[in-house]
């Protein structure tokens, strides 16, 4: 019997209303650990050929990991997966809160949904009882409103996922909302849920997770909590959470501003973490078992209304704040609330709105097309666009498929400033002078996202030959030197294995990343719950295997996939940053090619960025190697 896991997979065929419970194969746990690993393996093995991401044959997966739901810091993560409506390739999305543990207490490590329910439905899992119930008048309601209603009807012990109108209308950046403010935001996972006519998923579990040594888990868990509590970041980082980096990101010239036209905004102090504490915060709201609650739940008062909202996090501050020139934290929070209720990813929504506003400024979208004049720095403009998008009304029909598709349809050069990679909108760090981070965004498997690799510090350090030069070059408002483009790939690859490791284990990485909770602690915790020894190095090997697998999924799913899908938008290659610490800097096409060539070589991929068969075999992916030549566009230099 597998320890540390619930031991079962729940499969629901929504079309035929068939429910199957399967044992979790031991080999799957050993070779893919859990969470993102299970998602990648299942998508590769089970996606039918040429499947429409918004059709009934796409697969919707929710998976926890062996450390999810366990007595240790921040064990609340759930990892979702699908063929992405945004990119057409591998898609996954991570969620904090309490859902994954609840699914595990109900007896399932993973849930796989196929088909489409005949009517808008709510999937209810209560231990052994699984049912598909009519959603009735929940369909059409906002995410937060729906969760409120379901909690009232079903009881507070249920953990609930909902989509809003955006998911129902299959917006390419629709998200899933949970616990009144946590999201599985990226890749359009909410649209896939909506395309299956699933309005909500409610789980209650009263079972136990079998663990190898409960006494040792109790002691190790207590030790872990004492360790985190003793870290200076426990009191230093927690109060502001992720918003605490806003001023620094501006200081280093990496803050997306005005649709990524520039990377510094002098109004950043109005929308930083201190502003949240001053104007919004009611409660530090945490995920399951987390000692450092980064969620800031509060009340925002604006001219458009007063709302309760969890956030804004840094990403939302970046893309709906500085990127849209909204200089009031309450207004950023309000826009955050609108996204949450409509069920829109705040990152993609911010990028799409800023693109639309720039198009209006340039006369590429008219007042008639949009329905009103829109401008940067105007909350009403943003809210108008969000509502159109969620309902696919007016200009929303153009924007709802994401900035890549919208720009392709609109043309007139608007593709140059559609800020995305592979069709997923860029998240909160501007990188024209951060080549490692640029490479991270270019090669992230789901599209332009920072969750896979984050190396901005190395880029800053890499801007100078020595620490002395780095020290001397820094100053407020001073000009940063151009960062070195070569030698970036190794750090990116290291980060691409380490950060997603937490997605395999089913826990949050912030205790490690932000507070310095030693990553070796997880070896001991893994052993205590599973009874198996896995060194950190072995875990990172699994993470590397998963990386090669997700690349292979995209190579199979996206016709013509390869190097051309790894490029950043024209704006970032052609337009030097006009002002701020990185003024004058840009990354050229030639430099982008240097980054990719170095990266592909280290990855064991060919010149078109396709994994070579021998690389896949060395990663324990012989089954992928066997078939890759049939569907991938190999290219040799």
């Amino acid at each position, binding site marked *: 019997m597998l320890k540390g896991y619930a031991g079962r997979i729940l499969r629901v065929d929504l079309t035929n209303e068939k429910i199957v419970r399967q044992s979790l194969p031991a080999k799957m746990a050993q070779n893919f650990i859990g969470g993102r690993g299970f998602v990648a393996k299942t998508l590769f093995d089970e996606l039918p050929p040429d499947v429409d991401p918004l059709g009934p044959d796409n697969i919707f997966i929710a998976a926890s990991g062996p450390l999810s739901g366990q007595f240790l810091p921040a064990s609340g993560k759930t990892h979702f997966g699908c063929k992405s409506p945004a990119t057409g390739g591998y898609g996954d999305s991570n969620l904090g809160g309490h859902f994954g543990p609840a699914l595990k207490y109900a007896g399932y490590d993973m849930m796989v949904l196929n088909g489409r329910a005949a009517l808008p439905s709510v999937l209810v899992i209560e231990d052994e009882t699984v049912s598909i119930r009519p959603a009735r008048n929940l369909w059409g309601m906002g995410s937060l409103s729906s969760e409120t209603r379901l909690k009232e009807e079903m009881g507070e012990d249920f953990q609930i996922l909902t989509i809003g109108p955006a998911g129902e209308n299959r917006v390419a950046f629709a998200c899933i909302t949970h616990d009144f*403010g946590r999201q599985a935001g990226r890749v359009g996972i909410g649209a896939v849920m909506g395309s299956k006519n699933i309005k909500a998923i409610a789980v209650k579990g009263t079972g136990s997770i079998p663990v190898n040594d*409960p006494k040792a888990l109790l002691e190790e868990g*207590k030790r872990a*909590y004492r360790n985190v509590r003793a870290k200076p970041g426990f009191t230093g980082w927690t109060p502001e959470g992720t918003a605490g980096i806003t001023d620094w990101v501006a200081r280093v010239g990496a803050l997306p501003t005005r649709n990524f036209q520039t990377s510094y905004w002098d109004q950043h102090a109005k929308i930083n973490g201190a502003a949240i504490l001053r104007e919004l915060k009611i409660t530090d709201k*945490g*995920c399951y078992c987390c000692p450092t609650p980064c969620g800031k739940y509060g009340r925002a008062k604006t001219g458009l209304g007063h709302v309760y909202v969890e956030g804004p996090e840094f990403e939302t501050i970046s893309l709906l704040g500085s990127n849209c020139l909204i200089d009031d934290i309450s207004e950023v929070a309000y826009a955050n609330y609108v996204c949450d209720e409509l069920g829109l990813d705040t990152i993609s929504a911010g990028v799409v709105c800023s693109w639309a506003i720039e198009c209006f400024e340039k006369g590429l979208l008219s007042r008639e097309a949009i329905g009103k004049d829109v401008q940067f720095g105007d909350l009403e403009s943003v809210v108008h666009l969000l509502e159109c998008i969620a309902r696919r009304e007016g200009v929303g029909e153009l924007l709802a498929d994401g900035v890549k598709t919208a720009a392709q349809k609109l043309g007139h050069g608007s593709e140059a400033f559609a800020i995305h990679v592979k069709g997923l909108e860029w998240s909160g760090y501007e990188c024209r002078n951060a080549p490692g981070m640029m490479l991270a965004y270019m090669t992230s498997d789901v599209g332009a996202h920072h969750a896979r690799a984050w190396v901005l510090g190395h880029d800053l350090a890499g801007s100078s030959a020595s620490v002395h030069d780095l020290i001397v070059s820094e100053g407020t408002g001073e000009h940063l030197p151009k960062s070195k483009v070569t030698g970036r790939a190794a750090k990116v690859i290291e980060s691409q294995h380490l950060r997603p490791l937490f997605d395999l284990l089913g826990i949050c990485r912030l205790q490690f990343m932000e507070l310095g909770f030693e990553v070796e602690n997880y070896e001991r915790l893994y052993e205590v719950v599973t009874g198996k020894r896995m060194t950190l190095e072995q875990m990172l090997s699994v993470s590397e295997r998963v990386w090669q697998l997700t690349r292979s999924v995209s190579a199979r799913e996206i016709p013509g996939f390869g190097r051309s899908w790894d490029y950043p938008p024209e704006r970032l290659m052609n337009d030097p940053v006009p002002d701020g610490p990185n003024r004058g800097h840009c990354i050229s096409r030639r430099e982008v090619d240097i980054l990719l060539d170095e990266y592909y070589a280290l990855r064991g991929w060919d010149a078109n960025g396709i994994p070579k068969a021998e690389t896949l075999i060395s990663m324990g992916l012989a089954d992928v190697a066997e078939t890759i030549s049939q569907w991938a566009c190999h290219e040799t230099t």
Partner: protein
Amino acid sequence: MRLIAKSERCSGCGACRLVCGLTNYGEVNPAMAALSIHGRFPAPGVYEISLCDQCGACAEACPVDAIEAQNGVYLVNADVCISCGECIEACPHGVMFDHARLDAPIKCTLCQACAEICPRDALVLEEA
């Protein structure tokens, strides 16, 4: 000693419930916890902790005297308990629980594990 809830400090993490079940039953299962956390969302956006204050209403309600105080802490004797559920009904804070796999109701034993672990200092021990 008594356990006090400072709900204004609670972040809703639930580590207290998990450590309660793990300490008292040796299982990773928050449904075996003797306290509960209520999220008041979307408004007013706070958490409320319900816990046992050793008031003794459960003991009073028990028809077979299966619940007795030892050093001020009311404890359930599972060998005597007949699983009638009267104590659960009688508890004014709603913190007596039953569980399908347990013969007797779950009740706070004042083991102090929750107060020890709470990273928010939302559960504190005071002299009675």
